């Protein structure tokens, strides 16, 4: 459904991965599901859902354009990946990785996208990826290519990083220095999680974790957030230890108790007008229709007040946390999520 809002809503097809993997819906079905949720934009997951990838034919593009027309949606973003460790005993050189990135940019243009989510080296901070991903040097070489094709590269600032993390700065400096404004920041709502998601609690419990302990920590995080106080794990650590956590609990808690709360909404507001893309990440939706660990009304208000112009795309990641227990209705989750975002933005509810 096309609108003329400054902030438009879309869906990343990542959200429907189980529907695709288990052959419930093909690419057209996923696009139809996004349109059915009331979205007007589509984030393309070409590595997953375009069987012709990496060589997208004109015949496919015709079909694609037909779907956009039929379902009243538009292409927004294409996801770039950085498969540096291509062979078992050899990696792609910088030249080769550059060349592959050019292919993503050209394909984005062909499909009518205006943004490429670039998998830059620091998108989830340093120390997780064993390989050097698309770094500043490669992005610098991609800038003129993007200028030629009119494509914006979005640097996804995923948790544990935030949009104001200085590790993303060198990319923006390169664009500034060259006078080629074709790279910008992308917020990902993972930076605004204020507690463990109930989707994670469920998954860890099924892997052998202790429900009582995980929910205790989650409740303490929620308490701190709603009181407006920082969450300090050390303050409850001794209580958790007395509850007898096992290795699975401890391993999970080590990774999920470092943050004292969500990233700053003030900073988000300050940066909003400069952002080029936004991922509306979520794992679970509670009975009130709210995302259970991200304060959507506050996050979206910060974006709107700060003058963000562009798309927020639903990125449902609950599938991979819940599908070990059975079928996850991704289509319904996304529908509820779009409803929530429209509500936060004060848009008419037509669906």
């Amino acid at each position, binding site marked *: 459904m096309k609108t003329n809002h400054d902030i438009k809503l879309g869906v990343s097809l990542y959200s429907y991965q189980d529907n*695709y*993997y*288990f052959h419930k819906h093909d690419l057209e079905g996923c696009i139809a599901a996004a349109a059915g949720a009331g979205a007007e934009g589509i984030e393309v997951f070409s590595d*997953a859902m375009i069987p012709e990838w990496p060589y997208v034919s004109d015949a496919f593009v015709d079909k694609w354009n037909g779907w956009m027309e039929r379902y009243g949606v538009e292409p927004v973003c294409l996801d770039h*990946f950085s498969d*540096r*460790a291509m062979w*078992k005993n050899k990696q792609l050189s910088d030249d080769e990785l550059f060349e592959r990135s050019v292919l993503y940019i050209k394909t984005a243009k062909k499909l009518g996208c205006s943004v490429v989510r670039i998998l830059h080296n620091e998108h989830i901070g340093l120390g997780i990826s064993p390989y050097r991903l698309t770094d500043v040097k490669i992005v610098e070489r991609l800038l003129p290519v993007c200028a030629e094709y009119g494509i914006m590269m979005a640097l996804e600032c995923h948790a544990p990083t935030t949009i104001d993390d200085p590790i993303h700065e060198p990319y923006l400096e390169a664009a500034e220095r060259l006078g080629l404004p074709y790279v910008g920041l992308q917020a990902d709502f993972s930076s605004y999680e204020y507690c463990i998601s109930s989707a994670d609690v469920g998954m860890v419990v099924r892997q052998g974790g202790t429900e009582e302990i995980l929910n205790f920590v989650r409740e303490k995080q929620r308490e701190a957030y709603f009181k407006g106080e920082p969450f300090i794990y050390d303050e409850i650590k001794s209580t958790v230890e007395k509850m007898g956590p096992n290795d699975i609990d401890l391993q999970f808690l080590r990774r999920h108790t470092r943050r004292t709360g969500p990233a700053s909404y003030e900073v988000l507001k300050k940066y909003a007008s400069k952002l080029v893309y936004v991922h509306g990440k979520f794992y679970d939706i509670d009975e009130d229709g709210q995302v259970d660990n991200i304060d959507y009304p506050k996050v979206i208000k910060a974006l709107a007040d700060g003058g963000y112009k562009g798309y927020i795309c639903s990125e449902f990641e609950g599938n991979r946390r819940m*599908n070990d227990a059975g079928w996850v209705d991704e289509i319904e989750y996304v529908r509820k999520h779009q409803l929530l975002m429209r509500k936060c933005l004060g848009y008419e509810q037509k669906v």
Partner: protein
Amino acid sequence: MYDKHILTDEGCRSIWEHGKKVGYCVNLKINYYRGLPLCCIDEITLEVDGEKVDPENMLLQHNGREYAYLDIFRDDFPTDFYWLFGEKLRVVVKKEGGIEQGRHRVKVTLGTRRSYTPTMVSVCEKILTFA
């Protein structure tokens, strides 16, 4: 994720050539949220009824093409042959006499290299019925 689903129970059977059983096959699905070039497969280890299959005897068939399993590890393997997301990769084991019809215990270890996370190794074990 998809660990429980990487070993499918579809299309397990002996392979026939010129009226003789020359091998058997199983079908795998990827353990990641997107497709990957075949050369990003780090490992496929098969165990059938407790016996490890010699990788020399394994062939891969996907999207209309066939590859010797060990070839995908070569430094010059093409980067544009993808294991499509959600689609089956057939692993053919060359073995005179094929496999006996009926139930067999199959275990697969699948490792894939991805952009930004360490190599993910998934293990799936099932009793499969071979035709």
